[in-house]
């Protein structure tokens, strides 16, 4: 089961990595921020899967902190852009 969860985490990170092409390509900065947002969600999912696969204590708290701050940089981006 640990293998499967780790594989799923790897797949999510790979998907998000492909999504980062949007970060490189743009065209607008809003599109780039979307790629960042997807990376955030994917990172949370990968962390949850890693936490279940490896049993390192506290990884779940990292995911919790990321989820709490997920909107933080996007809000700053929108507020400063307007």
């Amino acid at each position: 089961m640990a293998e499967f969860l780790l594989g799923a985490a790897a797949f999510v990170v790979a998907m998000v990595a492909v999504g980062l092409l949007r970060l490189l390509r743009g065209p607008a900065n809003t599109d780039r921020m979307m790629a960042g947002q997807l990376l955030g969600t994917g990172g949370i999912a990968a962390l949850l899967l890693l936490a279940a696969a490896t049993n390192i204590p506290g990884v779940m708290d990292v995911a919790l902190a990321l989820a709490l701050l997920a909107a933080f940089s996007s809000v700053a981006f929108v507020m400063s852009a307007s």
Partner: protein
Amino acid sequence: MTLELVFDIGLAALVLTVATWTLLARETTAAVIGFVAYGLLLTLVWVRLAAVDVALTEAAIGSGMTGVLLLTAAARLRATEAVANAEQPGATLRVVAALLCVSVFAGLAGIVLLLPEPGPTLAPQAAANLGSTGLGNAVTAVLLSFRAIDTLLETVVLLLALLGVWSLAPDRVWGGRPGPQGNVQRDGVLVFLAQLLPPVGIVVAIHLFWVGADAPGGKFQAATILAAMWILAQQAGLTDAPPVDRRWLRLVLVAGPAAFLAVGFLGFAAAGAFLAYPAGYAKPLILFIEAALMPSIAATLALLVAGPPARTEPP
């Protein structure tokens, strides 16, 4: 085992790609978005290196706080980008810089590859002395007991940085509130988020603070989350940054380091050395220091993001 290596290699390639792009991006705002992504990826790397405490700090400060700070500054300085970009350095400088960087890479990579085997470590000593602190998290024990002087100086550095930022204010606005005026167009969606998130954030911060004694977490991570919640409320216009000359604000900023110092001097009387904890009282004293530091650090971090005072109260 091999699957783990595939995961790591993919992650490594991603980190390098995003870092390179952050350097090459034409627009600063785009580069900062790349930097936020870089911080998120580093968080995953820290988890892979079994440093969960660091992963938490990286997620909160390295990516979140620094990202917000730089995004705001990039928007502020957008008008200057064209002029500054015209000043591209010559080919010679580029080549010399590239050569320097390649040799730095070679040197560092060599050092990493030639590190002694097995790696030197203080983990057994830390584990052996963990009992005397009453803590379960060795990183917290290092931060607040074995190397407490580092942490004390760090809190002072934070305060000094804030003093430096504040001292950049022009005389006419000294004592005013930080941040540009008219930044408070109330946005329904944002207000909703800023009303809903802070209570949850405070609960999570207290949770991180509390488990920090025995599991990954602690005052820095908790303080960063508190600071982020305060900044969010300011962005939504629910509250305003306080004027920097308020006495209560100064008290909040100084209380943490002052309590830390007081406990340090108490060490002379009670245990014979600066920052030594009397036997049996280590854990309560450490918790007291952490509890005192948390609001101070949170306020300092949030005010560092807010910047120097920029407007005075209308008389």
